[in-house]
């Protein structure tokens, strides 16, 4: 990694201005993704690093039915916020399952949204073919061993997984991203924030260079809704998901009045399962409904030999989390 200029940002407009006018500049917040990619794997090399860590973008504000979370709030701080446990417990579960305490103390909410894929082909300079790192070079993961990779939103161009746990309940909740650019502020629903790789895997989200995520609005669940996050992995802790599912249900007299479902460990982006939600709503809360929803959620999977098992595992993960949230299983 060549040397870089370290700049400590003093205010938001200034930080945005510096990065916007310098194509080689990058924001630095918690650093758990950026420094890994820069200093260790060496796959990105910004000439200027703008540390936003001391900007006043940290903290949580409670509104009637949502939380406004400053981008520099750490995962640990959000997990500890009492309203999260009360009104969006699956957010807390996902945060706690998402990383070790050390990482949760460092990693920020904005950074979590913007974390780069763990795909080892992307992160290893010894691999030449990576469309995400070198557009047009191909995808070595599609033909090589791949297990921790995506099956939804994937194609022969890219199967890199978005490995966030937090984003799974956040897309289920229709969280909103607040973005500051040189021209002002805009908001984008998280479900529209990510861009499917299609034939341009290097484009991952709607941010323009220099735009800064400043806050995330997290809607709270309506009273009476229950939620759950299930993360399936080989190791009992401290591992990315093979599959995960975040579900929220409102059940009235045995019938599903409201359903939210999103998936992790399977998508090139945090995956909202709207088809499954459509199947769930208005149906009786039973195993048959849940299995039908699971089947609908995992349609059109793109698998390679190492990820083929995820199709069935994801369906079972969905069915299980729905059963658990519905109180049919422990």
């Amino acid at each position: 990694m060549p040397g870089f200029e370290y700049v400590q940002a003093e205010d938001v407009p200034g930080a945005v201005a510096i990065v916007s006018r310098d194509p080689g500049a990058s924001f630095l917040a918690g650093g758990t993704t950026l420094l890994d990619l820069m200093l260790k794997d060496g796959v990105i090399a910004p000439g200027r690093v703008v540390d936003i860590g001391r900007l006043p973008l940290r903290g949580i504000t409670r509104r009637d039915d949502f939380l406004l979370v400053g981008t520099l709030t750490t995962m640990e701080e959000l997990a500890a916020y009492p309203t999260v446990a009360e009104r969006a417990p699956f957010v807390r579960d996902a945060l706690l399952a998402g990383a070790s305490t050390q990482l949760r103390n460092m990693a920020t909410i904005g950074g979590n949204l913007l974390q780069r894929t763990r795909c080892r082909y992307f992160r290893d300079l010894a691999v030449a073919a990576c469309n995400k790192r070198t557009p047009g070079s191909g995808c070595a993961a599609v033909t090589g061993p791949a297990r921790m990779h995506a099956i939804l939103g994937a194609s022969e161009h890219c199967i890199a997984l978005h490995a966030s746990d937090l984003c799974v309940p956040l897309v289920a909740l229709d969280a909103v991203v607040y973005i500051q650019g040189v021209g002002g502020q805009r908001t984008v629903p998280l479900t529209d924030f990510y861009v499917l790789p299609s034939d341009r895997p290097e484009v991952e989200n709607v941010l323009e260079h220099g735009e800064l995520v400043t806050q995330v609005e997290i809607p709270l669940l309506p009273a009476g809704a229950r939620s759950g996050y299930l993360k399936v992995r080989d190791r009992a802790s401290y591992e990315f998901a093979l599959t995960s599912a975040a579900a929220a249900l409102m059940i009235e007299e045995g019938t599903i009045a409201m359903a939210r479902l999103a998936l992790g460990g399977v998508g090139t982006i945090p995956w909202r399962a709207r088809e499954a939600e459509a199947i769930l709503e208005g149906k009786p809360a039973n195993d048959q409904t849940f299995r039908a929803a699971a089947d609908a959620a995992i349609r059109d999977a793109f698998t390679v030999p190492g990820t083929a098992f995820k199709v069935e595992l994801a369906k079972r993960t969905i069915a299980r989390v729905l059963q658990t949230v519905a109180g049919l299983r422990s």
Partner: protein
Amino acid sequence: MRALSAPTVLGEPIDRVDGPLKVTGAAPYPSDIAYPDLVHAVLVQSTIGAGTMTAIHAEAAEAASGVLAVITYQNAPALAPAPMTGLGPSLPLPFRDNRVFHHGQHVAIVVAQTQEQAVAAARLLEIDYVQEAAVLGLDNPRAEVLHNPWQADLRRGDPAAALASAEVVVDETYTIAAETNNPLGLFATVASWEGDRLTVHDSTQWPVMERQTLATVFDIPESAVRVLSPYLGGGFGAGLRVYPHVILTALAARVVGRPVKLVLARPQMFTSVGHRPETQQRMKLGALQDGRLVAIDHGCTSALGIEGTNFGRVTVVTPPSYDCPNVATHDHQVRLNIPNPGYMRGPGKTEGNFALESALDELSYKLRIDPIELRLRNFAHVHPQSGLPWSSNALQECYRVGAERFGWSKRSPEIGSMREGHWLIGYGMAGVTFELYQPPCEVRVSIHRDGSAYVRSAATDIGTGTYTIAAQLAAELLGLEVGQVHVEIGDSDLPTAPQSGGSGLATSLGGAIVDAAGNLLRAFLKTVADDDRSPLQGMTAEGVAVTNGRIAAIEDSSVGETYFDILERHKLDELSAGGEYNPSAGAPGIAGPAAFAARFAEVHIDPELGLLRIARFVTVVDGGRILNAKTARSQIIGATVMGIGMTLLEETVIDSATGRIANATFGDYLIPVNADVPVLDVVFVGKPDELSPVGSKGLGEIGTVGVSAAIANAVYHATGRRIRTLPITIDKLL
């Protein structure tokens, strides 16, 4: 000298004597060593699996800030051929020519003023390659196969005929993924030259062998090389060979004329210091309906690098394990474009035991005989290959005690019959017979006028407890407090010692300490032999005992004096004596030594999600005399955790097209975390083994052996799925 028949210090669960250093961060590991003019090296590794380098573009790297040298095969000083070592031929030397034999082969070493500069410059090096199709995969028809590579294949009786006439046969294939040792300590080398004298701080488990190797390749006398390894961050076999990076660091230090530090990056730990090779085993058991084994045919094919050798017999576990008249073993190695495999805790035996003990479990279901009962019916009362009596063997007691502690009687034999909520419960067990070898060892022990004593040997403590047991043993034999005994090891200038490896060091070092302590006592008695003022004048070692730093007559303990008195009166600062252990003079007509164990696993399986969790694990070990109950237990616990990793998680994934390791990070190659490990129950049984002076049998590796079979057998009991391929990941249980 004190006899070991009724020890008061030896065996006690005293705290590690190196504990205070380790919990304060003060223990010096090789990567912690600094010199005032130290510079830093980084390795560049090949990005192809096979082929040749056609051009090396080093200009940009050489011109980069802080760079002192970019060394490749094109400009590296020549090295002399490496020697034969105690564990076979050395590895092929680095930087000989432009050929590439595996992905991740070292092709350059970059030296710069700082670590950051070295890393940046290394990324500027460009190498042109002509790539060839890498030979990969154990079943690759293009691969060279070495049959019977150690000339150790064995046959007794007529296994083919016995299999043909057996009433029940199990004939299955078991595969185990390649695994990487991955000690937490990144292997580090700090090399410093003063003229033609070389000092190396290194993560080695065998300083004396490393001294021999470095002296040979740099063509200097062994006396001009000093290898220091007082602490290393684990090894598990990775430090048993002198891998190329060690030689390259010394080479770089010579080129730049300054001390050089190299710390391997974690991904480089996968390609640079060996690994447990992938294996495929074919196991055939023949038995009678009453459970008696009539034939075992055990074959194994394991992976090997294109060049070099690796000693890793897998089928070696089978011949001594059961009383079976007809046995054949066959080992094969397949040369592939992979990093050279090496030793990983219990190499060969751990893999071999998985096949043998899984197959026995399969047989137990076919015969509807309880798995423990089946093993008892085939218990080897004498060594089944030689027919000689065992030096000691408490395997039957291991089964009995283990079954009791585990609650084996609560096992309902039917598959899938035990449940807790949506979790299926399975019980499984495995037996272990672990033959040991004892290498020679030397030590020097001294007692000083200030009341301190020293034990000095070129041995190492890789976390095994060498410091502690050496202090305990010396304190026991010399009648001192443990706190008085200082243990100095990890220095090749000290008396010659074998490796921390093969589970042999404790017994060998212990034997040498027994010898030295006797010699030291005789030295004290000789000092006072003509001393009219000594109450011990004229006494012999056989006639005295030592307690509380005082030598006294056995007949009348009031007749005696302290070490201090003798040294003081004779104006001596210290008396010292050497000792050695040379086990080649072992007892004839006795088989062994071998350690034994029984392993019991309870697994919980969520069959829908494929989740497998270890609920508890019970181990009973016959390890002969236990030298420290606390560190011994830790050895078994730690090895069990490694066995859990091997069984559930660990696989070094080698891309079959490129030879690149696809998961060479701690985020992708999973080792167990705290949440994976339940309470592990460990019990020791047996008695001191008569084949060594201290009676220990070696505990460093046996704890990894049998874990996989016990768990896989429990998985079968819970689910009816016989998993013959490790690791047992979620996808295999869906």
